[in-house]
């Protein structure tokens, strides 16, 4: 299977055809009469005419209609603006994990999700960029809006090899500095890192007025801890191994994990960051719908 087919399942994408990616807040200004778009004329499509009212911008008067009808009409355009979407994909070793309950590893799932999002963004002639990282930035693809740009993104994702530790906090700081233009930053990661550092980095994104969507990709086993046999758990990302009776530890683990997720959600809420927990046994359609519905 080709990479594009692998990530862009036509069935999934066909269902998403009706979706329109919308920034929840103003990225480049979109309310007519309140802001002026810096990108007027570009990617603005005619929609209909409306009778002139005092206060309307005279630049949009359709003089041809005035000439034919002797009445003032304004040209109405689709309220669209240029959008830049930054896809930030975690390719650390922990993303390699896949339990028996899941069809894909966390990384594979995140790659699928990123590809689908990129496709959707490009479909509406917006720009999409990609960053892969672990403890440092592994690849950075600048935003572009050409349809062929998807091939490059997929190629970069294919090249990513999950082998190293992660250092999300520092990476987020670095990226906040690099993303010059405001846009939507979609982070796809299991976020197994220091929460405080991560939140500092995410805060940096918000400081640069980016709209941040945090897709917290988790394996169902990490959420449910369903193991029964005594198991030696070998830590990824250079963490130690331990032999435990999972049944005896389940409650304690879930408590610890729940506390961690709670801290994460609380931090996101304070920074007005959209947090979505994504289970890798969920349908991708559900994930995208959950993620994009607020922006339609």
């Amino acid at each position: 299977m080709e990479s594009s087919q692998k990530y862009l399942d036509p069935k999934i994408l066909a269902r998403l055809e009706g979706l329109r990616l919308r920034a929840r807040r103003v990225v480049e200004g979109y309310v007519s009469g309140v802001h002026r778009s810096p990108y007027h004329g570009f990617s603005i499509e005619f929609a209909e005419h409306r009778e002139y009212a005092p206060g309307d911008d005279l630049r949009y008067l359709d003089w041809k209609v005035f000439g034919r009808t002797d009445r003032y009409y304004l040209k109405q355009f689709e309220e669209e603006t240029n959008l830049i979407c930054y896809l930030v994909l975690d390719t650390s070793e922990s993303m390699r994990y896949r339990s028996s309950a899941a069809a894909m590893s966390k990384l594979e799932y995140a790659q699928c999700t990123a590809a689908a999002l990129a496709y959707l963004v490009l479909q509406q002639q917006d720009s999409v960029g990609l960053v892969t990282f672990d403890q440092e930035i592994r690849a950075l693809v600048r935003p572009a809006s050409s349809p062929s740009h998807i091939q490059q993104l997929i190629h970069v994702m294919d090249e990513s090899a999950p082998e190293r530790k992660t250092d999300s906090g520092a990476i987020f700081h670095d990226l906040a500095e690099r993303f010059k233009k405001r846009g939507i930053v979609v982070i796809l990661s299991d976020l197994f890192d220091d929460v405080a550092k991560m939140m500092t980095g995410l805060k940096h994104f918000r400081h640069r007025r980016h709209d941040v969507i945090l897709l917290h990709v988790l394996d169902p086993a990490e959420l449910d801890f369903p193991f029964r046999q005594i198991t030696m758990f070998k830590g990824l990302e250079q963490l130690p191994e331990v032999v435990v009776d999972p049944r005896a530890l389940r409650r304690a683990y879930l408590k610890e994990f729940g506390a961690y997720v709670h801290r994460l959600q609380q931090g996101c809420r304070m920074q007005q960051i959209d947090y979505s927990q994504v289970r890798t046994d969920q349908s991708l359609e559900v994930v995208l719908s959950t993620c994009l519905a607020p922006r339609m």
Partner: protein
Amino acid sequence: MQPAAFIPVFAQASPWMFGWLAAAAAPILIHLWSRQKYREMSWAAMEYLLAAVRRSRRRVRLEQWLLLAIRTLLIILVVLAVVQSLLQHVGFTPTTSGRTHRVLVVDASYSMGYKPEEKSRFDQARQLARQIVEGGRQGDACTLVVMASPPRVVVGKPALDADELLEEIDQLRLGHTSANLPATVELVGQVVQAARREDSHLDRHEVYFLTDLGRIGWRPLLDGPAAAAFQKRSRDLAQAAALMVIDVGQPAAENIAVTDLRSLDPLPTPGRRIGLEATLENFGRQPQTGQTVELLVDGRSVDQQRVELQPGGRASVSFLCRFDMPGDHAVEVRAAGDALDVDNHRWMAAPVRRSIRVLCIDGRPSGEPFRGATDWLVYALNPQDRRDEQAPIGAEAAPESALLERDLGRYDCVFLCSVAQFTAHEAAVLRGYLDHGGNLVLFLGEGVLADRYNRELGDGAGQGLLLPARLGPTVDASPGRLDPLGYRHPIVEPFRGREQAGLLTTPVEKYCKLHVPDGSKAQVVLATAAGDPLVVEHTAGRGRVVLVATSADTSWTLMPVWPSFVPVVQELLAYCVGGAFQQRNVEVGQPLETSIVTPAADVAATLRAPGEASRQVPLRTDGDYATFHYDETVASGIYTAEFGPPIDQQRRFAANVDTVESDLTQLSEDQLRHEVWPGVAFQHRTSWQSADGGMTAPILRPPRLHLDLLYLALAMLFMETFLAWRFGHHTT
């Protein structure tokens, strides 16, 4: 429950059973093995897992140890339940922890006195009882019951002090009665119930029957409701306590016994030779040849004979004896000794009277000879017409007024002839006379008012029946022979085969129709040709009453002139007076009673019982009578009661064993299980003595202990499931 407490017992019981307890190590081994066998898995969220491990290490370890302990205990309980059930099945009963109440039932029937070697069965039972007490643990309690007839409680409240109980065991004495299993079961049931009710700290109750399992005592001849009640009590007892029967008897025990001794003359008088007949019985399986039988009177040997006894056979030995002096004499027949001494003796108290005093009340006196109602009677009582004090029977006639004027207590028997009626006072005097051992013979005749008889002497007075039958109308007799009713009664029994004596042909022309009430214990001695009772007798108070439906004169019958009259009257008197003779000779356990006539109110009475020192016995005074009553006849032999001062009288009693206990045949376990106690859970042991000569203390567990263990195991199972779920070990 502490599993460790079982271990020594199981180890003693059977080492291979102890090995099953090793199965309790299975959970530990499984736990250790599972720690070595695990799967490996890469894990991303390691940081949180490590934090959970750090936080829960101590709790998880504690939970694991707790579950491990419960699982181990669970296996131990199941193993113990199975092993206990097996042990119980094979007759072994290991001990348990907890406080135990042990009821020691020591058979004190005289068969326990069988002594084939150094120790008697009773000694062995006491020794076993001692060892059971000494084998108890701290907090155990014991009660002590003697199995006899009747059984008695020696220590009824569970005693914690072993020394006190041992002292009581040492003081137990062999009784001379037989075992009474139904009464003993009832009594033991009461003891157990009282202990369960009053001492809730006692966890278990165990009943030990230390007995020779004599067939007679242990196989009660019960039927109907009594048998059902016995079975129910036994089952109730077995449910309330664990039962163990420890057989201390010997299966093939030889024994002979003197089973009977009787005087052939019920009215012995001084200087006259009387016949004595003793019966010996061989209860063993070996013939007894040349068995010596000795007769002793007042402790002196007066005769000796030899007898042959076949296995299971009996033989009678006759002696002739003469009492030189009046008074009560002690007669003993003694067989040569065997392993059971108690029944080798039989005693008899023989009251030898210088003269039997008889008062004949004439209700229709006449001045002419043989025209009064008692003339023929006095003649029949004293055919030789002896007027001296040496006459064996001193009969005197008196009018009706003598009933109130004379002291009836001085007469052995009173004949009432043709007395028309009795006043209430006279009836009360007669009742008092009977209550103190007097005897009445009533002849009816012309002028007798049946209604007044029935009212004053019958049930009309409401003071108990004095008459053995209700008087009806006077009827003319139909011709025919009298009916002796098979000569069953002792009064007519001497006439058996002696028809020439004329009893059956006695002409009776008129008689009063008698009606014996339903359920009455009165016995018809003789009947008319028409089947109506002619002579009826019963016991009233401590005396006897004989009612003759016809007259003692010739007005209603020619019996006074008939050849049978003298022997009939003599037999009537012998039967009545013989009642007093029987009251002097009782079985062990029956009371001794007699009355003396004394003008003084504060007469002292002293009793010498066999093998015991003299003791004072209080008398109950009633008018001119003082009544002696003693009901602790626990030993066989001669009891001597001495009265006075101010009077000086002596009365002797003989108490003999009931020789049914002399049959030493034992009840087998099978018979016990199927015939005596069907459906009753108990354990039976015969090998009570261990190989080293000492006794193994047979500590019982309740039969349902294995069920308790299983219930406990089930509870452990539920607890393990709950805790595993609670600790997160459950599967989701």
